[in-house]
Each structure stands twice: as structure tokens, then as C-alpha cells.
């Protein structure tokens, strides 16, 4: 039982608080939270005081705090999950990547309503966005709404002017897909509103009954002119390799099956994944499913059976460990730093190898090479401009963060037979020559030669005044971010997707896509 909830900013000032029962206690405890030392986050997410508990999570620099009057009775896990869900719900309402102070302050009314709707007497009730959204239609108050709208409209019109010609060029296809999905979203909204115009006023009359029914995540009476179901399999690769010790620390596939459903009525879906047929045990062990999936059938049935919620939802999450024998999708084949002290030059070369099906190719690939260590170990002379060369893509030198950004772009797959290399050449500080030049300058009457172009060393010194920044830097690692469409690293595949609606018998269009991207961490530690 949650006695109260509050959102606090970074300085622990209350932005919004809502209590469900005992006010006096709530106030004293939030006061306690304010003075509690949270420095160095040595505490877990729980603070105890006189048999009452404060449970909080920190997201985007905001604290989401809940107070429990009777700590012994409360289920910490439920509370933390609820706070997390509430945060996600807010984020979806605000349609931002990051919540901040102003978002909260500007939308006090909305948040009060949301808090009331998602809990009942301190027991979490309903946190599904697709349903809550139909209950609470308070206008979100966002600072940049106008400009955002204008931008969207501009985008739309420019895309509308494009013809529908079937161009199989990759770029074109990307565009056309964008357009298609964009229209779909628009269409879906229109069909929902039934021409009532103002979406604000319209409330699905079935919605009020939904929450108490067997299928609590889908209201009845949804209708679309065109029935479509989109299923995206996105696999994030997490990799951490220690290059020096030649150890693979982590190699995981974090998969998500994301769906968007625009289907009328109460459709029954059957989705069959090839992993369910062959490696059922191993796959099911780490998979977590959305509440709409009937879990009882999973163990025995051939397929995943579900009645999908309307709109966007996350069907399934899974984590697979990749075999150590499988090479990383983007493999660091070589990383060399070779100083040439005779010529006062320092060469850095990086070679990468793709390891995925040859038919596929990356749609984007960026490699970041940290230079902090190199700048630390060698005296680099930045008065002479460094030179870069690479087989594919472009190289940029980020002076403030000490890294090279190699934008490789689109490369074809393969299994180690093709590789791509980047070279960078820096100049080492040549003391003799420097002295000689100084001497010459002193003796000659000429003014010092005029320098044109960028003065990298000045910029460098400007950004590296603080000596502490070096010691606090995390471990140096070559990181990569990439995206490989049509490819799943685990070879997961949707065998079939069947949509059935007993009453309406409509034709439906299922769409399935795959892609592999990097997860938060994809790093080769050097």
C-alpha cells in the first residue's frame, strides 16, 4: 500500500505530491527524504524511518518517491515496478525522450489525474498506456508543441509530393516506408475518431467497462478501415571485449519484439517463432511476455497466442547469450598505435570486419576510437594538422572528447573475408626543430609566419584545462554503433503470423521486419 507519491527535482524540492491516506505522516516523511543524504547513491532505493518507508527511483534527474505508512506490509518490488511504469507512462504522455522539471510543473493537472487513475487506495491498478490514454484526455502542455506540429506538416507535404513510383533504391525505400507508416498513423487516428473531429471529446463507450473485463487491455468496438499488424524484431547486441587480455567479458543478444496493431474488433493472433519450435526451453527461459499473451499455452502450444492491445506495445523481451565461438557482428580485427620517432610521426590504424550474412549490409555504422591514452602517452604536436585516410566512409576528429569518429556508413556483410581499415597520422612533438625555429625567430627580423586554418592546439588547450577530467575518464574503449536491417543475430524468425477475428472476418495485413542494432554497450576495451 502506497500512502503517497511525489516527484522531486534534483535538489529534492517537491514538484508535485499526492497522498492517498495519512497526510501528517506523508509530510514528515517527504521532509525526511529531503534531508536524507543521498550523496554517492550508497543507499539502495529504500529509506526506513520509524516503521515507515520511502521508496524512490531516480530517472532523468528526477526522483519519483513513494511513501509507505506501514513498511512491513508493503511489497517493495511492486512499488518500484509501479514507479518505473508510471515514469514510462508519463514519458509517453509527454512524448519526450527525457522528462524534466518543466514538464512536470506544466502538467500538474495531468499528473494528478494519472496518479488517481493508475492507483486505487495506493494499490497500482492500471498502467497500460493504450488504455489510460482513452480515459484521460487532458491536453499535454508542452513548450514546443507548435514548432513540432509545423515540422510534421512540412514533412508530410514534402512526402506527399513524392510520387508512389516503386523505386527499389534503398534510400527511396526507406522514405516510402516512412511515408507509409506515417499515413497509417494518421489514418488510424481518423478511423478512431469516426469523423467526430475533435479527438478530445470522443470516448469509446466500451472503455469504461474494459478494466473490469476478462481482457482488460483491449476495449471493444475498435474499428479500422484497413486492418494491419506490424511486428518488429529488434535485437540489440551487447558486447564487451578486453582486447589486451583477449577476453570476451560479455556477449549478449537483447531482443525485443515490438508491435503496432491497427486491427478491428477482438482479433486472436497466433505468432510462431522458429525458436519456439526448436529451442523452446532455452528461449522461454529468458523471455518475458506482455500481459496479453496467454502464458499457460506457451509451454505446450506451437505458437504464442494473444489478443493484442490497440496501438503500440512490447510483445516480448528476451536475452540470449551468444556462444563464445561466434565472432561479434562487427569485429575489431586490428588496432595499432605505431610511433615513428625518427620521422616524429604516430600512426593509428583500426581495422574492422563484418561478420554477418553477405546478402545484408549495415545501414549505418559508426566507430569511435578514443585518443585520451595516446595523448597522455605521447607528446602530440597539434600545430601540424593530423591526417586521416580510410577505405570507406569519413573520419572526423573530435577534439573536445579526444576521439576519432569514423563514420563507416553502409558496408556489406561477410564472414571475415572483407575488412575495412582506417589510418590516422599524428605528428609528434619535435623538440629540436621547435628550438631551432624559436632560435630563428629570435634572431631574424621577420615577423612570425602567418598561420592559416584551424589552430588545433589552442582549441585543445582550451578544452583540456581541467586536469581532473583525465583521471575520471572511464576505461578507454573502442565503441561502435550500427544498424543492420533484415537481419537477426540469433536467427530468430517469425514462422507465421495468423490473425483471426470470429465476427468480422476481415482481410488483414501482417508486416514483419527484423533488424540488429548495438545495445547500450558495444565496446572493445583497449
Amino acid at each position: 500500500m502506497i500512502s503517497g507519491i511525489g516527484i522531486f527535482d534534483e535538489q529534492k524540492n517537491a514538484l508535485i505530491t499526492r497522498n492517498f491516506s495519512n497526510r501528517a505522516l506523508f509530510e514528515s516523511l517527504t521532509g525526511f527524504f529531503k534531508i536524507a543524504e543521498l550523496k554517492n547513491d550508497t543507499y539502495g532505493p529504500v529509506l526506513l524511518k520509524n516503521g515507515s518507508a520511502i521508496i524512490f527511483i531516480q530517472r532523468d534527474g528526477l526522483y519519483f518517491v513513494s511513501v509507505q505508512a506501514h513498511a512491513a506490509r508493503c511489497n517493495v518490488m511492486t512499488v518500484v515496478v509501479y514507479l518505473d511504469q508510471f515514469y514510462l507512462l508519463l514519458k509517453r504522455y509527454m512524448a519526450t525522450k527525457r522528462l524534466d522539471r518543466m514538464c512536470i510543473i506544466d502538467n500538474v493537472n495531468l499528473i494528478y489525474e494519472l496518479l488517481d487513475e493508475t492507483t486505487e487506495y495506493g494499490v497500482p491498478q492500471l498502467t497500460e498506456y493504450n488504455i489510460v490514454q482513452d480515459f484521460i484526455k487532458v491536453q499535454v502542455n508542452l513548450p514546443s508543441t507548435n514548432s513540432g506540429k509545423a515540422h510534421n506538416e512540412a514533412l508530410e507535404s514534402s512526402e506527399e509530393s513524392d510520387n508512389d513510383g516503386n523505386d527499389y533504391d534503398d534510400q527511396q525505400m526507406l522514405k516510402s516506408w516512412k511515408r507509409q507508416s506515417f499515413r497509417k498513423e494518421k489514418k488510424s487516428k481518423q478511423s478512431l475518431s469516426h469523423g467526430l473531429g475533435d479527438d478530445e471529446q470522443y470516448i469509446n463507450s466500451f472503455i469504461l467497462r474494459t478494466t473490469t473485463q476478462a481482457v482488460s487491455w483491449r476495449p471493444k468496438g475498435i474499428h479500422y478501415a484497413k486492418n494491419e499488424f506490424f511486428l518488429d524484431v529488434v535485437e540489440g547486441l551487447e558486447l564487451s571485449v578486453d582486447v589486451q587480455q583477449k577476453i570476451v567479458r560479455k556477449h549478449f543478444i537483447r531482443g525485443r519484439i515490438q508491435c503496432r496493431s491497427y486491427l478491428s474488433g477482438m482479433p486472436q493472433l497466433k505468432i510462431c517463432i522458429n525458436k519456439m519450435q526448436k529451442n523452446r526451453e532455452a528461449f522461454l527461459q529468458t523471455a518475458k511476455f506482455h500481459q496479453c499473451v496467454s502464458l499457460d499455452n506457451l509451454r505446450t502450444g506451437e505458437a504464442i497466442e494473444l489478443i493484442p492491445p490497440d496501438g503500440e506495445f512490447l510483445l516480448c523481451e528476451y536475452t540470449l547469450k551468444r556462444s563464445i565461438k561466434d565472432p561479434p557482428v562487427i569485429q575489431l580485427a586490428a588496432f595499432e598505435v605505431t610511433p615513428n620517432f625518427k620521422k616524429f610521426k604516430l600512426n593509428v590504424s583500426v581495422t574492422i570486419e563484418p561478420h554477418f550474412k553477405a546478402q545484408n549490409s549495415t545501414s549505418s555504422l559508426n566507430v569511435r576510437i578514443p585518443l585520451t591514452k595516446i595523448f597522455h602517452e605521447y607528446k602530440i604536436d597539434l600545430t601540424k594538422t593530423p591526417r586521416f585516410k580510410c577505405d570507406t566512409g569519413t573520419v572526423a576528429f573530435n577534439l573536445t572528447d579526444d576521439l576519432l569518429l569514423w563514420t563507416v556508413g553502409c558496408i556489406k556483410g561477410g564472414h571475415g573475408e572483407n575488412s575495412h581499415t582506417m589510418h590516422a597520422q599524428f605528428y609528434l612533438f619535435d623538440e629540436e626543430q621547435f628550438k631551432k625555429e624559436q632560435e630563428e625567430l629570435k634572431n631574424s627580423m621577420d615577423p612570425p609566419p602567418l598561420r592559416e586554418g584551424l589552430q588545433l592546439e589552442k582549441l585543445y588547450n582550451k578544452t583540456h584545462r581541467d586536469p581532473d577530467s583525465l583521471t575520471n575518464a572511464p576505461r578507454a574503449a573502442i565503441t561502435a554503433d550500427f544498424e543492420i536491417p533484415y537481419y537477426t543475430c540469433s536467427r530468430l524468425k517469425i514462422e507465421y503470423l495468423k490473425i483471426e477475428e470470429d465476427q468480422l472476418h476481415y482481410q488483414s495485413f501482417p508486416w514483419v521486419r527484423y533488424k540488429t542494432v548495438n545495445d547500450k554497450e558495444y565496446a572493445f576495451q583497449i
Partner: protein
Amino acid sequence: MSDQRVFTRHKAYEIRAELQQADNKRFKASAARQKNALKKIIANITMGYLNEMASLFPEILKFWSIDDDMEVKMACHQYALAMAPTKSSHFEEALKLIQDDFASSNERLRIMALNTLSSIPRPSYYSACQKCLESVLTRSSESADLKRAALHAILNMDQADKNSARPYVSFLSQIINEQRQFPSVRAHALSVLDALNESHKDLPPMSLSHDTCFNLLELLPELNEWDHTLILNGLTANYVPQTHSESHHLIEVVLPHLQHVNTSVSLAALKLILYLINYVDSIHESIVKRLSSSVVALLNKPSELQFLVLRNVILLLLGRDKPFLQIDVSYFFVEFNDPIYIKDTKLEILYLLAKEDNLRQILQELKDYATDIDIQMSRKAIRAIGNLAVKLENSVDDCINVLLDLLDFGVEYIIQEIISVFRNVMRKYPEQDSETIKRLVAFNDSVQEPESRSAMIWIITQFSRSLPNFLTLFRVFSDNFGEESLEVQFSVLNSSVKFFVRTRSSETEELCLKILKTAVDNADNPDLRERALMYWRLLSLVQQRADSNISLDDIVEIVDGELPLITLNTRLDPAVLEELELNIGSIASIYLKPIGQVFRLNRTMTLPQSPVLNRNRDSLEMIPDTRSSKSSASYSDPISTRSRAGSSPVKKMNDHDKPAETVNHLKMKRRTTIGSSKVTRKPSILSRRISIKRPFT
């Protein structure tokens, strides 16, 4: 925005003026103004200006009676709730109004009224509330929302007045058993009854019957995710299985819920299964594996959740003598971006998990942490290595070698910590070779912190036989005895006496006397003086009177006797463990302390008696799974350590140079997958197989 203007401090008279002013004006405009004024009141209460707003009660009452608008009613109820602690005399008037609200036909208003009635701690309100409750709960025509509100009103009343909820207990169990009730009402009734049971020690345990239990589980598909948690939690320890097959069956039913995407549901399921496992004779290994892997899958959540999972579940389950989960150590390796509380817990787990066979891996990892930039982390890692040395008697040498390696780093705080840690290691294994001791003593001058200083003194004293120059080493500490911290002073005092009784030379005598004299004459701390005096008397006893019955040998025995062996207590008390396992997900289990210690008033949970209860939990037989060894052939079986015997998680990267045999292998395999699937062979009953080549937007 207008919201921000509402959230400013107002005086009571300002708002009162605004309310009255609004009365005179045209109706429509005034309604909006009134609402705005009411909003200001609520906003001011939220900001904590309770006393100022308290004087507005009469105005509120006026609005309450005349206005039917929902927003106004909501504000009035909120106001009443906020005023609950003030004991205002207006509450009697308000009671009438609230009862009127309850009698209305608007459901939201009725729920609100019920909530207000139960939350205001006054006898008159309680009796009114009880009447309302009876009318709601007995009538089957009322809606589910209202009934849920009534159930929570019971809890609300119970919190303020311990006796008011008692009459409803039988009522609640009736609701739970009633088939015709709304599923969510039954779920809530279960959780309310559970909560009541926990706070009232004298209530009889609510043992649910077998039928009710399965009945409730059948409800699960009809409930939303949060109600799942309520049911699963409610069943734990309240339903007592009577036969082995009963509990086996129940485990089967609950297992699928481990797969739920909502962490709290899967944890509640885990808790129920763990509880039921106490009532079975044997368990399939595949179930253990499923439990382990679902727990591992939870580790990929936001850090707060991850912390709870680590702390609550894993630490507990691994704390058993025979660990129940089979999870590979590598999952608990610390990431550099983990918050400190997760790092600490992971270190604890690593320490718990360490055994002879995985020690190398763990030591390597701890060594990495020890050279971490984060000083706190590095200290903790070194501590952990030291504790491991004490814990695992067969692999002390490995641990000591790692510690000695770390010494070579020469970083100040690492040295301090290693010296402190070595005291424990040396005490457990006194038969160290003199090389190690010499290497340690080389850092004699660089130890700074009190703890490491006194540890160094202890080492020098204890191993003075292998140190020819021990007195010179010792003088570093004894020379400025007066300026040392108390801890070091004690050590110096003890050691000087030990030296004296061990080797009686003029040098040691002089040293000992000097220290004793300074301690007695100059020391401020009474304890130190006391101890010095004690030693002094002891020594003079022997010297002065030769006929006394204490001989020198006795004194040597007293001062420099054999030290008892140290052991580390790594296991929790089984009784506590049992209780904590029943409380997974609660606050007590985070602190790993029994409930009674954290919250004194609460009932401690124990496993209910049953003919099939396993008293000895380690005797649980595990039926090995024959299929699993085959299935691990293709891609990784993520958990089982057995299948990974050949390919340990730390593997040389050189393997990547080998030809990509897996790929060819897989092409073939994929063909077989398609071929073997019954589905694709019968295209008629399927919708078409789909796959489109379009990039992501």
C-alpha cells in the same frame, strides 16, 4: 500558465473574499471563479499552509451543500481529508453532507464519500462508514469499483482503529470464496485479508481450502497485471498443501507466470513457488533451471529493480547451504557504471559464490576491481579477497599471491588496505613463510591509517622471530606514542609488553617501561591508562615477590598466549532464512534481518504445519533432467554451468580466428527447421508466411 498562479501562497481572507465576491456576480462567470478559488485552497494545502486554510471550513461547507459539480465535490472531499488531523468542530456538519454524497447515484462520488468516511479518525465517522460498508458489500448489484473501494475502506479504518476491522474478517473470506463475485474484487479481498492478518497477531491464520486456491488461480487470466501480484502474494503462506501432488500441481500452474513482463508479477510467482517447494518431496532440475533463468532475465532491468532482485532473491537463495539457484558467476561481475549499492551487493554475492572451482575467475575479477579508479570499490575488493582467503582454506595461496601482486602497484590506499587485510589472513594461517612477511614489513614506513598501522604492529609482533630487526621496525610506531590514535596506542602498548615478556633484554625492558610510563602518566583516555596500569601491576607482581603463585610462564601465557582461530560467519540462521524467503519482496529481506527486528509489531511468518512439510530443506531431492544435455548443443543454454563446462564464459578471443564453422552449420540447421515444422507443410490452414524487405523507419 494559470496553474502556476494557483500555486502561490494566499491568505485565508483573500480567498474568502474571492469566494464571496463570486457569489454576487453573474452565475456562469462566478462558477469558474469559485472553482479557481477552490483550486487555490487545495494548492495551498499541498504546499503545506494547512493552518491558514483551516479557517475556511465554513465556506467549504457552504459550497458542499449547494453545488453539484463534480470538480467542486472533489475539492471539498480533498479539503476534508486534509483537515482530518485538525479536529475541527465542523466535521459533524460535514458528516451529513458526506452521507448525502454516498446516497447519490453518481458512482465516483460514492467512492469518494466512502474513502473520506473511512479516513477521518472520528467515532461518528466510523459508525457511519460501517453502515455504508455493509450496504455495499452485501448487495450484489453494486459495481466492482465501489466494492473495491469498500474493501480498502476496511483497511483504512483498521490503520487508525485496531478493533474496527475485526467484524469484517469472516465477511472477507466469504467474498473470497464466492464464485459470483467480480474477479478483481476477490483478488482485493484476498490482499486486504492478508494485510489484516499480518497486523493482528491474535487472528487465526486464514487457511484457504484447496478448492479456493485453485479457484483463485483460475481467475488470473481475467485480471490485470497488478491484481496478479495480489493473488500470488496472497496465496503465499495462506494456503497449506496437504499432499505432495497438490503442491506439485500448484507449482506447475504458477510456473508460466514467471514469464510475465511485469517484474512484480514474476517475483510474486517466484515467491509462491519457493514457498511450495517446502511441501514437496523432490523437484525436477528443469524447474530449478527455469527459476534461475527467469531471475537472470530480471537482471536486465533498471538499476533499482536490479538491486532488489539481487538483494532480495539471489542473496537469499544462495545463502542456503545448498544453493537453490544455478547461476553463473559471470552475471555478478561489476560493471563500471553500476550504482554503488549494486556494486556492493554484487561483491557480496561473489564472495558467497566463491568455491575452489571458480575461484580463479573471481580472483581475477576482484583484482581488476582493486585497481579500479573508484577508491571505495578498490578497498572493498581487497577486503573481499582477504575474506576469501580466510573462507577457503585450500586456496589461500592463490589469494595471498593476488594480494602480494597488488602490493606491487604501490598505490597508497591499496597498501593500507592490504596490510589491514593481512592481519586476518595471518591470524588464520600463522605458518606463513618469512618471505611474505618481509615483503609486508617493507611497507613499514608507508602505512598511515590507524587500522593498517595497528595491523602492521600486530604482524611485526607476531612474527618477530623471523624479523631480526623487529625492534627498529617497532620503534617507528613507539617513538611518537603520544601522537598516535587510540587504536594504535593500544596496539603499541600490547606489543611492547609482549616483546618484554618474550625476550627479556635491557632494550625491551627500557622500551616497555617507557611506553607504560607514558601511558600511565600522560594518556588522556581512561581505558588506555587502565590497561597500562594492569600490565604494570602484572609485571611487578612477578618481579617483586618471588614467592607469589604467579610465575613468569603464567604471564607469558596471559600476555602472549595462543590466539583462538577465527572463522567467518557466512551463513544466515536457517530459521531467519526461512522467514525471509516467505517475505521476498518486502523491506525486511533487503536488510536480511528477521521481520521482528525491523518492525517490532508485525507477526513473524513461519511455514505452516502440514503432513508434507519438509523440515530439513537440504534433503530435497533433485531429479536430474535428461533432456537438457542434448539441448545445449546449438546456441547457448544461458544458465546451466554444466553445459558450459567446455566453453567457460571467460574464453580466449583467439577462438575468433577459427573458421566460421557455426555459420555453415546453421544454414543447414535452418533448412531443417523449416522442413521439420509442421506448420509450413500445411499452407492451407495458415495465413501466408510473411517477410518483407523494408528498412526501419
